[in-house]
C-alpha cells in the first residue's frame, strides 16, 4: 500500500503546486512604461501660496485678484472648480484635489500663456452639450502638465490653442459606461504645433486631434478606448513611439497631408471595426518601424494616398498575428511597401471589396521586398532575397471573399482540403492579389517600438504540464499493478 500512497501524494502535490501557480500570477497592472511625469520649471520664491489653513484659502479669489504672469502654488486640500482668465501659472503641490462633484468642468482656462500642473481633478459633469471637461482651455501656449484626471467626461479639451503642450497627465474616463457614451480623453481643435507626450489615457471614447497642423504626439499610452488617436484634417502631424493597446482602433488618420506614423505599438484593436492603423484619404504619409500585433486588421487603407502624385511609404513595420495584416480597398494605389515583416497573419493581405488590388502599388523598392511568413520559395544564392516571387494565393481566401458566409468554416479540414486540391490541380488556381518579386527571407525586427506585453504565465503552464504527466504516469503505474482494482485484496 505504501507505493500507492507515495504515487498518490506525488500526483496530488503536483496538482496543488499547479493550482497555486494559477493564483500566483503577477497581478501587476499592464503598463507600457511610456508614461512619466515631465520636468517643470522651479517655483520662484515670490509665488503666492494657497492652502486650506493659509490666509489665502480662497483659490478662485486669489486667481481673480492676482496680477498677470504670477505663480500660484496650491498646497494639497480639496477645491471647487476654478476658471482662469489671465496668463499665470497654477502649480499644485501634494496633489490638490479639484472635485467637480458631477457638475461642469474642473479647470476652465480662457487665456493664453496659462500653465496648470500637479492637480488631481475628479468627477466632471456628464453634459455633452457643454463638453464638461477635466481641463478646458481656449488660448495659445497653454501648458497642461502632470495632472491626474479621473472620472471625467472629456479629459483635456482645447481649442485655438496653438503651441500648447499636454504632457505627463493621466486621464481616465468613466468605467462601466460604454465607449460611445464616454467623452474624449483628449480633444485638440484648431490648435497648431501642439506637443502631446508621455500621457497615459484609459477608458475614454476617443483622443482627437482635429484641424491642427504640425502636432507632435509621442510616447503616449492609450488603453481601452475607441479611437486611440484620431487625426482629422491635420497636416504634417507626427505620431511616434506611442503605445495603443486594446482599443477599437489604434491610430486613425482622416484626410490631411504628410503624416508620419513611426515606431508605435498598435496592439489588440478588436471589435467589428478593429484596426491598428487606419488611413482614410491621407495624402503622402510615412508609416515606419511600427509593431502592429494582434489586431482585427493591422493597417487599413481606404483610398490613401488620395491625390495623384502623392506617395504612401510603408517600411520596416512588423505586422504580426493579425486576423488580416493589411486590409486595402481595390482603388488604393501609389503605396510602396518595403522591408516590412508580415508574420503569421491569418490573412496577410485582404482586398476589401471585389476585384484585385490596384497594380499601382509597389511591393518592393529598389530590389528590397518584404518578409512573408508564408513564403515557400528559396534563396539559393544566399543574398537574402528569395529567388521566386511571393504571391498571395489561396482559393479558400478567395471563396471567403466572394461568399462571406463561408468564413464560418475557417480552420475546418474541409477548407484546408479545398486549398490543397487547388494546389494539386492548378485548374482551380486563385488569382494572386499581389506579387512581391524580391521577398526577404529573414524577418526585419522592430527596433524602437514599445514591446508587446505578454500575460502568459510560463510557470503555470509548466506546473500544469508536469502535473498532467505525473497523473498519466500514475495511471499507467496503476493499470499495470496486479489486482489493485480489488483494493489490494
Amino acid at each position, binding site marked *: 500500500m505504501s507505493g500507492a500512497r507515495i504515487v498518490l501524494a506525488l500526483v496530488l502535490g503536483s496538482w496543488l503546486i499547479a493550482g497555486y501557480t494559477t493564483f500566483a500570477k503577477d497581478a501587476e497592472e499592464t503598463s507600457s512604461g511610456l508614461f512619466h511625469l515631465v520636468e517643470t520649471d522651479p517655483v520662484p520664491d515670490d509665488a503666492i501660496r494657497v492652502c486650506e489653513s493659509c490666509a489665502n484659502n480662497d483659490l478662485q479669489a486669489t486667481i481673480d485678484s492676482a496680477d498677470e504672469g504670477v505663480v500660484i502654488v496650491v498646497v494639497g486640500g480639496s477645491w471647487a472648480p476654478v476658471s482662469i482668465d489671465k496668463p499665470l501659472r497654477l502649480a499644485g503641490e501634494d496633489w490638490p484635489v479639484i472635485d467637480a462633484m458631477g457638475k461642469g468642468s474642473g479647470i476652465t482656462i480662457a487665456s493664453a500663456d496659462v500653465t496648470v500642473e500637479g492637480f488631481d481633478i475628479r468627477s466632471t459633469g456628464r453634459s455633452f452639450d457643454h463638453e464638461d471637461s477635466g481641463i478646458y482651455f481656449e488660448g495659445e501656449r497653454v501648458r497642461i502638465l502632470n495632472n491626474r484626471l479621473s472620472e471625467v467626461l472629456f479629459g483635456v479639451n482645447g481649442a485655438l490653442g496653438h503651441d500648447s503642450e499636454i504632457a505627463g497627465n493621466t486621464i481616465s474616463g468613466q468605467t462601466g459606461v460604454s465607449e460611445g457614451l464616454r467623452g474624449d480623453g483628449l480633444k485638440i481643435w484648431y490648435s497648431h504645433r501642439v506637443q502631446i507626450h508621455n500621457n497615459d489615457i484609459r477608458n475614454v471614447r476617443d483622443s482627437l486631434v482635429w484641424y491642427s497642423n504640425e502636432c507632435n504626439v509621442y510616447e503616449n499610452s492609450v488603453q481601452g478606448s475607441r479611437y486611440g488617436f484620431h487625426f482629422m484634417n491635420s497636416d504634417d502631424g507626427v505620431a511616434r513611439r506611442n503605445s495603443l493597446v486594446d482599443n477599437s482602433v489604434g491610430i486613425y488618420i482622416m484626410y490631411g497631408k504628410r503624416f508620419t506614423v513611426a515606431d508605435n505599438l498598435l496592439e489588440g484593436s478588436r471589435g467589428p471595426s478593429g484596426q491598428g492603423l487606419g488611413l482614410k484619404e491621407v495624402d503622402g504619409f510615412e508609416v515606419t518601424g511600427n509593431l502592429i500585433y494582434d489586431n482585427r486588421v493591422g493597417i487599413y487603407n481606404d483610398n490613401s494616398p488620395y491625390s495623384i502624385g502623392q506617395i504612401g511609404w510603408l517600411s520596416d513595420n512588423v505586422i504580426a498575428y493579425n486576423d488580416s495584416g493589411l486590409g486595402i480597398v481595390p482603388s488604393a494605389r501609389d503605396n510602396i511597401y518595403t522591408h516590412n515583416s508580415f508574420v503569421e497573419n491569418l490573412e496577410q493581405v485582404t482586398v476589401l471589396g471585389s476585384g484585385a488590388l490596384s497594380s499601382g502599388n509597389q511591393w518592393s523598392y529598389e530590389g528590397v521586398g518584404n518578409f512573408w511568413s508564408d513564403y515557400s520559395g528559396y534563396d539559393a544564392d544566399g543574398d537574402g532575397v528569395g529567388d521566386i516571387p511571393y504571391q498571395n494565393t489561396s482559393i479558400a481566401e478567395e471563396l471567403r471573399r466572394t461568399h462571406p458566409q463561408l468564413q464560418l468554416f475557417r480552420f475546418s*479540414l474541409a477548407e484546408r482540403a479545398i486549398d490543397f486540391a487547388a494546389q494539386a490541380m492548378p485548374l482551380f488556381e486563385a488569382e494572386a492579389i499581389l506579387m512581391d518579386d524580391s521577398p526577404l527571407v529573414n*524577418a526585419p525586427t522592430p527596433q524602437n517600438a514599445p514591446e508587446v506585453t505578454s500575460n502568459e504565465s510560463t510557470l503555470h503552464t509548466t506546473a500544469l*504540464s508536469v502535473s498532467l504527466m505525473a497523473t498519466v504516469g500514475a495511471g499507467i503505474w496503476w493499470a499495470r499493478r496486479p489486482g489493485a482494482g480489488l483494493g489490494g485484496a
Partner: protein
Amino acid sequence: MSSRSVLTLTQRELLDALRNRWFIVYAAAFLVLCISLAAMIVNSAGYAGISGFGRTAAGLINLVLFLAPLMGLTLGAQSLSAEREQGTLAYLLAQPVSLGEIFLAKFLGLAIAIAGAIAIGFSISSLAIMYWSGGAGVGIFLRLLPLTLLLGWTTLAIGFVISAVSDKTVSALGIGVVAWLLLVLIGDLGLMGASVAVSISPGMLLTLTIVNPLESFRIASILQLRNSIELLGPSGLVANDRFGDLTLWVLVGVMIVWLTGATMLAYVLARRRELQ
C-alpha cells in the same frame, strides 16, 4: 452495480489499451504531430518575444480535429465488437458482473486512455515550446485541453454506438472510418457547397453546422484561443447575437448532448443485442 468490479474491469481495460497496437500508434502519432506543431509555432514566430494565434497555431485545431475523432471513433468501434468476436464478452457475462458494469468500465477505461494520450501530447509539447522559445506562446496547447478531451470522449461514445451494432471488428472499424470522414470532411464540404448553391441564412447555416459535434469543437476552440468569433463572418455575428457570452457553453452543450446521448444509445443497443 458494484464499484469494485467496475474498478477492476476499468483497470483491465486500461491495461488492454496499453497493449493495443492501435492505441499505441495513435498516442505516438498524436505526440509526434503535437511536438512538430510546437516546433513550427516556435519557428514561425521567428524572433524573440512575439507569439500569438497565427496560421501556424491555427494548425492545432486541424491537428486535433483530424486525430482526436479518429482515435475516439476507431477505438470505440473496436471496443465491444472485439470482445464479442473473441468470445471474452460472453465469458465476462458469465461471471457475476452485469452488462452495465462491463459497459461502464470499458467506456471509462478507454476514456481515461484517450485522455492520457491527449494529456501527454499536450504537456510534452507545452514543455517543448517552453524549452525552445523561453515562454512565448506556451499556453496554446493547454488552453485547448478541456475541449480536446471532450471531443475525444464524444467521438468515443459515437464509436461505442457503432461497436454495439457491429458483428465484426473489421466492419466496425470500416463504419468508424466512414463516420469519421463524414463528420470531419464530407459534412462540411456538403454544407459549404449547399450554402454557395442555394441561399441559406447565416442563422440556419450556423445551426446546421454546430449540430456536428466536431464543428462545435472547432468553433468553441476558436473562441477559446481567440476570445471572439468575429473571424467567422455573418454566422459568427449571428452566434454572438443569439448566445452572447453563452456561446462557448452552447457549443460545449452540443458536445455533451452527443456524448451522453450516444453513450445511452450504445448501452441500449448493446443490451438489446446481448440479452436477447
